[in-house]
Structures are given as structure tokens and as C-alpha cells.
């Protein structure tokens, strides 16, 4: 197995919204039916590399659009049973992506 470093920036290739709380398990998010907020998911195309599936975050001004520029961010997903913060990757609009 070889580790390959991928580009931290890319463009939205496709996206959707997840508007119902996924079944747990396997879902490990901390939301309840009352606190659940829909989230965006998409495939981000990393030029010349591949497409990766990811949560899409930071879209305050409306849903993502295909072709929008995004970059990786690290975000806290939940706190596990032993009190440790579980982090994950996501993609958020770049400044350029936001203004477009």
C-alpha cells in the first residue's frame, strides 16, 4: 500500500442534501431527531487525480453548485465514549468559490 498525497482544493462534481437523520448504527453523529439539521454531501473532483466523496460545509448562501471551487477543512464531528474529539475532513467553498 502506498500513501498518495492529494490536492487540498478541487471543484464540486455533484452534490445533494441529506435531509433525514441516517440510521444508527452505522451513523455515529450526535444529533437526535429533534436537533438534526440537513447537511450537504458531494463528490469533489481533484484535478488530474480522482473524485472523493465528502461532506460539504460552509454553504451559508444557498446550496453548492457543480463546478464550485472548494478546499479541505478539518472539523470536529463528535466526542467519543472516552471524551476524545473525533475529527473528520470536509470540503468548504474557497474565498473565490464563495464570491462566485
Amino acid at each position, binding site marked *: 500500500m502506498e500513501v498518495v498525497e492529494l490536492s487540498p482544493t478541487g471543484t464540486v462534481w*455533484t452534490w445533494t442534501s441529506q435531509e*433525514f437523520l441516517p*440510521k444508527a448504527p452505522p451513523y455515529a453523529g450526535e444529533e437526535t431527531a429533534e436537533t438534526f439539521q440537513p447537511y450537504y454531501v458531494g463528490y469533489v473532483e481533484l484535478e488530474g487525480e480522482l473524485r472523493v466523496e465528502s461532506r460539504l460545509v460552509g454553504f451559508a448562501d444557498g446550496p453548492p453548485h457543480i463546478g464550485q471551487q472548494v478546499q479541505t477543512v478539518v472539523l470536529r464531528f463528535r466526542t467519543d465514549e472516552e471524551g476524545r474529539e473525533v475529527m473528520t475532513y470536509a470540503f468548504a467553498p474557497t474565498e473565490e468559490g464563495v464570491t462566485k
Partner: protein
Amino acid sequence: MTDVAIIGVGLHPFGRFPGKSAIEMGADAIRAALADAGLQWRDVQFAFGGSYEVDNPDAVVNLLGLTGLPFTDVYNGCATAASAISLAAQTIQLGAYDIGVAVGMDKHPVGAFSADPVQYSLPSWYGELGLFLTPKFFAMKIQRYMYDHGITRQCLAAVAAKAYRNGARNPNAFRKSPIPAEQIAESRMVNDPLTQYMFCSPDEGAAAIVLCKADIAHRFTPNPIFLRASEVRTRRYGAFEVHSPSTPLQRGDAPTTDASRAAYERAGLGPEDVDVIQLQDTDAGAEIIHMAENGFCKDGEQEQLIADGATGIDGPMPINTDGGLLANGEPIGASGLRQVHELVLQLRGDGGDRQVPGNPKVGYAQLYGAPGTAGVTIVSR
């Protein structure tokens, strides 16, 4: 190669049936198929049974009779029924037996399917993070397809409205009330662009067919339907498939395209020869994509075809005449046998209120599902 005929079809209605087990529904479907063929259970020489929820569909023998027949259980995701049909046909073609049954049955809990991603050779974080979900994949697939090929949200709503319109003409359907396209478009958003009424639901039901060596079919029925092809394929590198944490940039053909080509070749027929079509409409977008993947139109032509009513019962390419998965729901093991049940009724002229006009001769059925498996069956008079 030995030709295979379908001489009997039977179906337990699809929907919700509290207190009734999947096995009981499977037994009802087999009894109906045998009655249709004028046969008794003791005449059946072998069987294949498909189910997702039932570990042992062969336990249906407890209800039908302990005749000792070889009964093989199969599971192949949404293509389970296609596998049962394909294996049953091959058993006859091998010359092992002359008369057999393919049956599918299921009884799913309410709500979207859920599983352990590790069972799909995926990392557990994929499920923990809320990415291991089929509906959102189908939404992302059609979202990109709409962008590439100019398909509108109105087109999605029109597909679903047609399904419920056809379901209203099918006494065995789960959803038997028409829903106007506007109401479908404005219903609760589930995964953009797909709303609540653009998705099928897992539900309950069973379906069965009786197959035999074609040269003895006329002993049992004056109007046998011939199984011209039944092909199953899995995904190849580059196909954009459900449950993929990443995908290559290079796009490859979908497993449906591969299964479709193989089935046309086996049958010696092409899409222009097909008179009645059943496509996997897990969601309204899937029906649109599958129209092109099965060769019935080019990418992007669906928008105009659907707006013109081409896929309605009276149109030139009637699709999902019994309401498809959208109006019938999806008991996984039974779904593809429901499709063939409908095709057989249509080719016999027994379609009732939903009969396709013009004496259809060739029927086509396609199944598709996780993790990238497709089945195509072609039948003809």
C-alpha cells in the same frame, strides 16, 4: 441452446401486510403461478428462491409440500430476482430438469435500507459519518446527469406522476392513488433534487414464475412466453456506483449497459424491437438514466420524450406499466419477478386497465442496485 418458456406467473400484492410472513407471501405467489400453469407443486422439479430478509426462502416447502425437490436460495442485492430467473433458466438449458420455479419474497422494516459498511468492504468511518446511504447516492447521480444532459426537475416529477397514474390501474400496487406532478415536486425534499414521492419505499410482497423447456410448453398453456435472455453483470472500473468513497476521473459503462448489451445479443433483438419496458425506478431519476443505459434513447432525449408522454401506457415506449418500484415499493427479492409478471400479462394481452395497445410482442425488464449489480431479462411471445 435449449429454449425456455414461462408458463405460469403469480404475485402476492406489494405493500404492507401486518401479521403475514414473507414465506407465506412466497407460498401464495407460487400457488398462483402454479394455478396459472395448471400444475401442482409435486410437478415442480427444482426451484430458486430469492430474498434479502429471509435466510431460507426454501422453507416455503413447509407450506407447499415436502417433495424433496432441489431448492437453491439466492441473494444478489436488487438483482436477486434476475439471478433466480437466470439460474432457473440455465438449469433447464443444462438439461438437468424440465420444469422449475423462480420465486422472490421479502418483508422489509419501514425506512431506508441500512447495513454495516464493513460488509461491503468499506471503512467503518464511511458509515459513521453519514455517507453510507443509497438514496443520497442516487440523488448525486441524477444531479450530475441533469447538469450534463439538460434534464429538469419537472421531468423528475413527471416520471413519478406517471408511475402513480399506472399504479392506480394496478390492483396489486402498494400506492394506488394518482399524485399530480405539482404535488410530487413540492413534497418534502429528501435528497436534492429528489423529493419524498420521487423515491420508492422498501415494502413487502412476493412473485413467482413457472419455467419449462420450451418444446413442452404447449402441454400447459396455449400462450407460453419465451425467455429470450436473462443476464446479470457487476460494475467495472470507472462506473459511478453507490457506496464509493472515491471514484476515478475516467468514466466507464454502467453495469446496466453491460447487462443490456449482453441480453440484446443473446436474444438477437435490439431496443427498437421492444414493446413494453420495465426499468429499475428506485427513484424518478433512475428511470431517466436507465432509459439511456438500456438503449431506448440517447442521453438527454428523455426530457422531450417524457414531456410528450412517450413513456406512458399509450406511448411508443411504455415504461413501468404496473407503476414500477415507485408505485409498488421494493421487496428486494421479489421486485424483478414482479417486472416479469407484468411483462407476461402484457404480452398475453391480460394487462386489463393498463394493457399496452397494439399486441405487444417483446418485453424488457432491468434491475439495478447496490453495490453496482444489474440484471436484464428479455421475453417474447
